[in-house]
């Protein structure tokens, strides 16, 4: 990593921090305008007005918004995001419990998207306008146009109810203890500690939910890759490589695919927050104890601290992923590296 890249990385981190502050202010306000009195909802049906008032007082809900926000910033800088009214636990604990499950899901979905979508796209571009192209186009559109939750229900009924190939719910089978928590991602932890039976069990559990979550992305990735690769095939350097009689595989991977990965990666990065959000539909169907579902429950229960905490964590991940994407793109494309140097200088 050259000094220019470092400068631009620092600049990006600084801007991300600004964005995160903006997100926190926005979500802080939004969380408070969702209808319903959080105290009343938390206390349940039989609470008296007195009890509600007491809890509102304890939660500082009667203070002016800027005062509440200042308090929030002060406490969150100390790593305290407050208590969740929905689970009655510290929000930090909840996020620590639920984030790894969702990350694992999104990670697997991301792998599926690239592993299936990119080759499909390359194939379609290679045989452009032929029947392969049209078939891939139809398949990927079908993936794109079916809502995630419908995929989830269909996959579950098909592969768990009728065929019984895969487990239905949860992250591990009954009686299989979770691997020692290193990252919280069960598959990774099982591998790291050499528990291959646990790893296999965790993988069979994640296949269906990850596929359901990835279906839209696979279609999108295939379409984007096809478009970019098709463009690359039209460039003089690919024509030249073809004229030199380079093997097809080498042309595809070296000359056509590499520049074509840039827009695909960019969109994948931008899509990250959307995917974390969409995961809750999949999590609900497959009883996946993840952060996305927690966030939705938090909204439905008007659990202020949990809403703010969840959204902030998701935003932070979105920003980090996008910095990583930009770094990868810069690594893939020398021209951007040069531009960065110019911008930094």
């Amino acid at each position, binding site marked *: 990593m050259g000094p220019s890249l470092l400068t631009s990385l620092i600049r990006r981190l600084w801007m991300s921090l600004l964005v995160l502050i903006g997100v926190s202010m926005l979500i802080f306000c939004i969380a408070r305008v969702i209808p319903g009195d959080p105290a009343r909802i938390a206390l349940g049906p*039989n609470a008296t007005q007195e009890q509600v008032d007491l809890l509102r007082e304890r939660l500082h809900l009667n203070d002016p918004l800027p005062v509440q926000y200042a308090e929030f910033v002060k406490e969150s800088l100390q790593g305290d995001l407050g208590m969740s009214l929905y689970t009655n636990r510290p929000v930090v604990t909840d996020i620590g419990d639920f984030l790894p499950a969702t990350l694992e899901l999104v990670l697997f979905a991301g792998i599926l998207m690239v592993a299936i979508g990119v080759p499909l796209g390359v194939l379609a571009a290679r045989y452009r306008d032929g029947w392969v192209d049209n078939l891939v186009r139809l398949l990927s559109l079908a993936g794109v146009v079916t809502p995630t939750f419908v995929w989830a229900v269909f996959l579950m009924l098909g592969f768990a109810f009728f065929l019984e190939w895969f487990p239905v719910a949860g992250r591990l089978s*009954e009686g299989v203890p979770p691997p020692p928590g290193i990252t919280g991602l069960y598959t990774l932890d099982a591998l790291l500690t050499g528990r291959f039976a646990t790893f296999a069990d965790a993988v069979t559990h994640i296949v269906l939910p990850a596929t359901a979550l990835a279906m839209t992305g696979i279609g999108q990735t295939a379409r984007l890759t096809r478009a970019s690769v098709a463009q690359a095939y039209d460039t003089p350097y690919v024509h030249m490589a073809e004229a030199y009689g380079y093997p097809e595989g080498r042309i595809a991977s070296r000359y056509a695919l590499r520049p074509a990965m840039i827009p695909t990666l960019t969109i994948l990065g931008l899509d990250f927050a959307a995917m974390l959000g969409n995961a809750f539909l999949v999590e609900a169907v497959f009883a996946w*104890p993840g952060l996305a579902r*927690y966030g939705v429950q938090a909204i439905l229960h008007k659990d202020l601290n949990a809403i703010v905490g969840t959204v902030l964590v998701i935003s932070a991940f979105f920003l980090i992923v996008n910095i990583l994407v930009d770094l990868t793109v810069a690594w893939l494309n020398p021209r951007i590296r040069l531009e960065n140097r110019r911008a930094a200088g």
Partner: protein
Amino acid sequence: MIDVKTSVSALALAGATALLPMAAGAQTTLRLDEVAVGELDPAKATDYADSILMFNAYDTLLLPTRGGGGMAPHLAESWAAAGTTFTFTLRDDVAFASGNPLTAADVVFSYDRLIALGQGFSHLFRDHVASVEATGDRTVVFTLNQPYAPFLAGLTRLQIVDSATVLANLEDGDFGDLGDYGQAFLSANAAGTGAYAVTAHNPQEETTFARNDGYFLPFDGAAPDVVRLRYGLEGATVRTLIARGEHDIASQWLPPEIVRGIAEGDGTQLLLESGTGGFYIKLNTQKPPLDDVHCRRALAYALDYASVLALVQVTDEVAQGQPANGPLPVGMLGSDPGLAYPGQDMDRAQQELEACAYAPGDHTLEISWIAEVPIEERFALLMQSNFQQLGFGTEVVRVPWALFTERATSVESTPHISQLFVNSTTPDPDALVYNMYHSTVAGTWQSVEWLQNDDVDRLLEAGRAELDQDARAAIYQELGALLVDLQPTIYAYETQSVFPASSRVTAPSLSDPAQSYLVNGMNFMFRHMSVE
């Protein structure tokens, strides 16, 4: 290790039952689910999932009599009432999961904690109990402010906590020396005497229990060794799990079609819990045209009760409801078998409508349904078509629960018609009707009728003050007849909770009315269940 444990428990049971050969090593597991996340802190528990946790992980001084009215000893082996003073004598053979013996100080601590936190079921005691004192190691005295008949029934919601364990696990908080009063600890751990000990609690996923073989009462039959209470499963998921034999008892919140689908599978049964509440169609009595009793009665006559019940029919024999004739379900103290059961009668509806001061065409009735309870949409559409026949304009509105609780706080924003399933939280009629109809409680989701009636208030207060059971029954019967006449609510049906289950489970309290408790969720005491 397992062998040792089994033989110890077998020995412990040997006195009561014949020594049976135990299946070596194999643990039996019971798996069930609930929609909402369970709250493990006894001072905060309120809903159904919470109740299941409470009645298994903790015990109470008294329990309702199985299959009937009245209270029976539990942690308290006896009690004596003198005026407004109740003296309880505790059993001497009860220990908490920590090994600490149960003492009167634990009861006082549990009560003080409930009141200090001011959440959960503290409202059952706060305005009525003057003091709670330990007068001996095993004697506790509750002194009330005034005669308060629902007091003993309310004790089913006072879970006794292990004070020593809680005090050893305090964190910083608003309660001075008491720190957070153990809130952080008790939201993740149980500190009770219960028949089942909580081994893990993940609010998003499940709570797991292990059988407490040192429990002071014997277990019925082959009670499960391990219980998993899962949270938030989708209908399709539950159905798939049961079909694959990976789940035992589904929640009561599934729509009838899915319950039917599960029941049609092999090796399934339907478990039932009834007699604790009803489906109430609540009319806003302060908003025209429903501030006129005749318009309210017109709606009550126009409703197609048979279709309502047909909508909740699960199989030929089982429905999620049965006809209701008033505010109190059959079998509850003060319910009146003599009251007529309502039915659709368009002629009488028209007569009432003519007596009403408003012309139906001038008003649009807002029929709300709670977004989280999809079956209510069908009731709303049925009411829409029934009430349109009378000439009322109608508008069906879907209201998320959070928004509904907000709208319920003022007359203007409360819809004309709200649909609510309400269950009694204690085995006492007061718990059901006082919070609905007393003029001082208006403005909560339970009291969206906004009823302001002196006679109703008088009867509700009399019902609390009267200690003689027969006289109380008469008061609540009078109240029931008055409410049917005033019609603040259309009593659509009595709810019967239907739990589709695998037939490997035997649960007498959920299948035999003579063995069931009249408290919501109490029939899920795992110690009464058997698993193959």
